[in-house]
């Protein structure tokens, strides 16, 4: 049986409106939005979907691993209900604002404690800090090979075969196990859980570990000097008005031709 660990991060909703996004300029971190609940990083959901696709075709155990501080149960239950076998969290107040390097160290330590695994899946990056670093740290610290930004992954003969977008087309990469693979949205959205599965997931136990369960020492390598919302400029949009939508379209075309932005000839 193949064992897959999927690393998933609870994040601020990346689709939240800019007008509600605020940062704390002193602590250099975002202020959790009041009206928008947190959710699983969408790329991590893609990674889970990739794991479930493998599980569809063979005997396979899928473990979700998440790290943070006081992770909301409601957010953890959804991926569990889509078909994952278990969920382990490592939660500690000191993990609330951990940077990418330390996150990688903590996750690698947790994976070492889980011990028995063949594959680690992650999203290509988390949609909060967009670092794109954590996967690399996990792979490096576990000393396993990695393939990034996959669109498809299959396991056969003790190997994983991954399709990824290369510069000159789709690359097919074969990799020995254990291995780590990161996924992008091309693998497909995470399947919807059924209502009975959601009910069942609510009863499933979440294995909550704390920092003391893993071997973790915080490193101070990167320093955040500043975090701010940039000036996106003031609206300077010329609105094309008109009696009806078709007229607006005609006026827009004429205006763009008059201003030399589109050509009158072909």
């Amino acid at each position, binding site marked *: 049986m193949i064992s897959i660990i999927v690393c998933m991060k609870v994040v601020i909703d990346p689709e939240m409106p800019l007008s509600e996004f605020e940062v704390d300029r002193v602590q250099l971190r975002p202020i959790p939005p009041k009206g928008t609940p947190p959710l699983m990083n969408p790329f991590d959901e893609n990674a889970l979907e990739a794991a479930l696709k493998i599980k569809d075709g063979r005997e396979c155990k899928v473990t979700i691993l998440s790290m943070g501080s006081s992770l909301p149960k409601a957010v953890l239950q959804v991926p569990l209900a889509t078909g994952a076998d278990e969920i382990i969290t490592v939660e500690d107040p000191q993990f609330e604002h951990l940077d990418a390097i330390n996150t990688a160290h903590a996750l690698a330590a947790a994976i070492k404690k889980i011990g028995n695994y063949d594959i680690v899946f992650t999203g290509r990056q988390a949609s909060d*800090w967009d*670092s794109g670093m954590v996967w690399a740290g996990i792979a490096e610290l576990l000393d396993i090979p990695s393939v990034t930004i996959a669109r498809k992954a299959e396991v056969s003969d003790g190997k994983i075969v991954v399709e990824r977008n290369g510069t000159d087309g*789709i690359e097919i990469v074969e990799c020995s196990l254990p291995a780590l693979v990161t996924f992008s949205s091309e693998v497909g959205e995470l399947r919807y859980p059924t209502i009975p599965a959601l009910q069942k997931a609510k009863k499933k136990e979440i294995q909550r570990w704390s920092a003391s369960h893993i071997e973790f020492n915080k490193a101070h390598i990167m320093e955040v000097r500043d975090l701010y919302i940039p000036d996106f400029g003031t609206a300077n949009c010329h609105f094309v008005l008109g009696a009806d939508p078709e007229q607006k379209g005609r006026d827009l075309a004429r*205006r*763009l031709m008059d201003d030399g*932005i589109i050509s009158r000839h072909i």
Partner: protein
Amino acid sequence: MEPYENVLIVGEMESERLSGLTAQLLRIGKELSHALKRELHLLVLSGKSEQVDKEGFCYGADRVYAASHQLLENYTTDAYLQAMEQVVTALKPSIILFGHSDRGSDLAPRLAFRLRTGATLDCMELRIDGESGLLEQIKPVFGGKAYCHYTCVGGSPQIASVRDGVFDPADYVLRPMGEVTQLSLFIDPSKIRTRVIGTRQDDDLSLAQKLGAASIVVSGGRGLKNQDGVGILKETAHLLDGAVSGSRPAIDYGWLPGSLQVGLTGKKIKPQLYIAVGISGALQHMAGCLKSKVIVAINSDESAPIFRFSHYGVVDDYKQVLKGFNEEVRLAREHEGE
């Protein structure tokens, strides 16, 4: 040689020439090396020794290093990591810059962890902090809603990858060229755990290439509401001799292939004219098109953020707006032809 002093650019080749992104790295690299009063070095790793490495001098590199090995012909993380470890040991750069390409985004972070140092990926701005002499690495976070400044205080070298299109390419000046220094590498094949077993032509690759080169792009988002909308976009694009693209929802819904995604995790383009149809203007999308010369937004929601970034806007149902638009363009051209 003093430890950790110069600025090293990890270059990439494209059709036997330095890639556009490499030329951009050489511009920002030169600024950094000037500020540090150090040299700018260019490294090209490849499967065979190339003759064109010398053009690095024309872009302003003080030294050009080439390292070739047959195991570097196809990119594998493990082989390139071995190569980079040896290069760092030999050259001891204080700063290493990668392009935030397929390769750079794969190699830079693993190298950072291997060398027990830090990295910042997808940077939009880099500068030397006058006080500490450290590289200040500035990148968009939270999908572009905020900017974060990082410095690497606990490791060497300082590593960053740079977003394509942020900097202009370095000036290309014909000048007496130095000699390319060949570095010899030892790469242990038993430590290469991945193997490229094939490539498949992406059906959409030619579309994606056309998108990169197009001066007019018509792009659709969630507001298209269905696949039919794509047909209308294509008609407009055809009339304007442009290309079609989409924001992430248009790709996730399957209306357009993934290679045509414009945004933070997709293509970054800067056409003369970008027509955003039914695109709300989330910053994750704008990261891919904000550098367009003129942005036109067509959206039924007048409060959509896209209008903040647009030069021209139409608030209405896009199907009818584009119908009128296409008619008018056709009409003007018929008149012109008479």
